[in-house]
């Protein structure tokens, strides 16, 4: 609700005084209202003839009168009447006081940290019988933060253009959509986790199996008859709640359950074969979805010009940790694809992530599945935590990532490009 920036004679906050009437028993005469000439509706005559209206009509006008929403002639007739009619005068006062209670809706943003504090306080007082697995906490927090942002934006903003950016083939690529399109994207990809848990697929029961995140998104966008609107918020939010609920009941042990991320299009597999596509254990998958949720929330916030903070440090730390753990396999893939030269075995890179949620990771460069060894350290990269996440999201390029670098330049370049290639639509 936005009102014009005019001082309002009926708003107690504008008047700075007390309620209307002040107990004098006679209503105030309404101040002249702002002419509504922009409406094209016939305007009342400037010198109205005294109107003669009967009691039921005058009574029916009391609401409009209290809101200064009737013609000057009608207002004069009502006021004339109020001098003679006790019940109407009483009601007029009451309604006029009620007008003083109207005020523009305050869009007071709830501090997102409040949710965490309130829930922690509750759970501290009465421990839950069905707790959230701790690896689901970032997803819970990030979806709640994004939902709070969505709640605040208007119909028009849902159609604000958003450019989704990621790295493909070591080059930045992008795709245009809208705020609603981004939520549809999150809904479609979260559906990977939903189907892995046996929940309903947002793409529908007859969706093609084995689709990866990008293909699922395209399929969802294509299937819609019209561009997505704010109506997509509810199914997205319902699914996030359902996921959180389901993993809570499944318990912390369900974190090892594999979540397939689709079969790559160039893989030919007979139906029924064990899916050879990429997969993440549920605990990492939920973390990855939390990461995507935050990154896209930032895309949306930027598109609608809202401030948006990074995740809580302990959640950010888990996201960085996931990216760091995914790096060795990505490096190996790059080697297989001929994008990076193979080096002598046993090398590692020290990734130092600064700021809240940061830490240090030793990335094995040549042997995924092993842990990095400090003896083989050939390079040291230092960068800010949020910057690292934007790199991993394909939102800053490896060349631009403001990194402090010491050591083997080739290895550093390789790791930064591998980080960027973690990103996708």
């Amino acid at each position: 609700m936005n009102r014009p920036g005019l001082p309002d004679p009926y708003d107690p906050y504008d008047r700075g005084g007390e309620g209307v009437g002040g107990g004098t028993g006679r209503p105030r005469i309404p101040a002249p209202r702002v002419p509504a000439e922009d409406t094209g509706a016939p305007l009342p005559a400037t010198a109205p003839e005294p109107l003669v209206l009967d009691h039921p009509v005058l009574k029916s006008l009391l609401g409009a009168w209290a809101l200064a929403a009737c013609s000057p002639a009608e207002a004069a007739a009502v006021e004339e009447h109020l001098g003679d009619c006790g019940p109407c005068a009483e009601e007029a006062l009451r309604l006029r006081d009620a007008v003083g209670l109207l005020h523009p809706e305050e869009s007071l943003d709830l501090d997102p940290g409040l949710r965490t504090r309130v829930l922690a306080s509750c759970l501290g007082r009465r421990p839950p019988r069905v707790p959230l697995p701790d690896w689901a906490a970032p997803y819970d927090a990030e979806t709640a933060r994004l939902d709070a942002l969505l709640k605040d934006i208007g119909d028009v903003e849902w159609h604000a253009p958003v450019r989704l950016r990621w790295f493909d083939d070591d080059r930045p690529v992008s795709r245009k959509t809208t705020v609603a399109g981004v939520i549809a994207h999150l809904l479609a990809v979260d559906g990977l986790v939903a189907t892995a848990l046996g929940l309903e697929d947002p793409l529908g029961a007859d969706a093609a199996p084995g689709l990866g995140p990008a293909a699922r998104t395209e399929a969802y966008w294509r299937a819609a008859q019209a561009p997505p609107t704010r109506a997509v918020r509810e199914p997205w939010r319902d699914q996030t709640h359902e996921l959180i609920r389901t993993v809570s009941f499944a318990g912390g042990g369900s974190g090892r359950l594999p979540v397939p991320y689709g079969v790559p299009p160039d893989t030919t597999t007979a139906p029924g074969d064990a899916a050879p596509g990429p997969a993440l254990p549920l605990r990492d998958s939920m973390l990855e979805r939390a990461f995507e949720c935050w990154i896209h929330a930032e895309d949306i916030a930027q598109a609608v010009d809202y401030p948006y903070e990074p995740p809580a440090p302990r959640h950010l730390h888990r996201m960085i940790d996931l990216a760091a753990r995914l790096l060795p396999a990505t490096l190996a893939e790059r080697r297989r694809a001929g994008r990076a030269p193979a080096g002598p075995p046993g090398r590692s890179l020290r990734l130092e992530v600064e700021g809240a949620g940061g830490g240090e990771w030793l990335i094995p460069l040549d042997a995924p599945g092993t842990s990095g060894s400090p003896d083989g350290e050939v390079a040291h990269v230092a960068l800010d935590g949020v910057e690292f996440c934007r790199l991993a999201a394909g939102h800053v390029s490896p060349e631009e990532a403001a990194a402090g670098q010491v050591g083997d330049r080739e290895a550093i370049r390789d790791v930064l490009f591998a980080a960027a290639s973690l990103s996708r639509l």
Partner: protein
Amino acid sequence: MPKDAPRRWDRRMQQRLAHGEAAALGELYDRFASLVHSLAHRVLGDVAAADRITRDVFTHIWENPEAYDPKQGPLRSWIATLAHQQAVQRLRRTESAALARGGAGTPEELERKVRRASAAARADYIVTAMPAPLRAALELAYFQRRDYRQTAADLGVTEDEARRRLRLGLQLLSTAYDTRDAHGTPDTSSPADPTGPSGPSGPSYGAHGYGRTL
């Protein structure tokens, strides 16, 4: 959606809370935190104080989910009542303490202030809970400054109907000033409220103006 779906949601939520589902608490917060916080903020005019009321209200619900009686009204009304009572109690407490310390004002002014804050918060709730056609008419006439004829045209209703909606909407709103307690005590629970500081579990959510069918 079937007519009783919201009620079913309320009952289901209560069962999940009673069962100790942390995820249910999160959903409850997501649905009602802004209601609780804005009511408390409207009464207290202070974000930190509203934050604290929000924490207290959700803690109370989480610890006492059985205190909600679905037969007495929607969960939303119950939560609004809790928030309203706790906020008004807090306002009265802090204002009385200030007065006792020799602050400016009289007990009568304190009562007026509490009453005004209480009515303002209730009015906010009434506006959000009133039938959409009435809210739309008020929105046009007050916020968009349309007169009732233009309001009628905008809504595609007769001028009679526009006048009726504006009057009815304001009549509903004016009940925010009413003292709703059936026992004739002030609507704002006194510090000696037998239901204690963690809020009431009394039978009627209508007592504070949050339970009526509008």
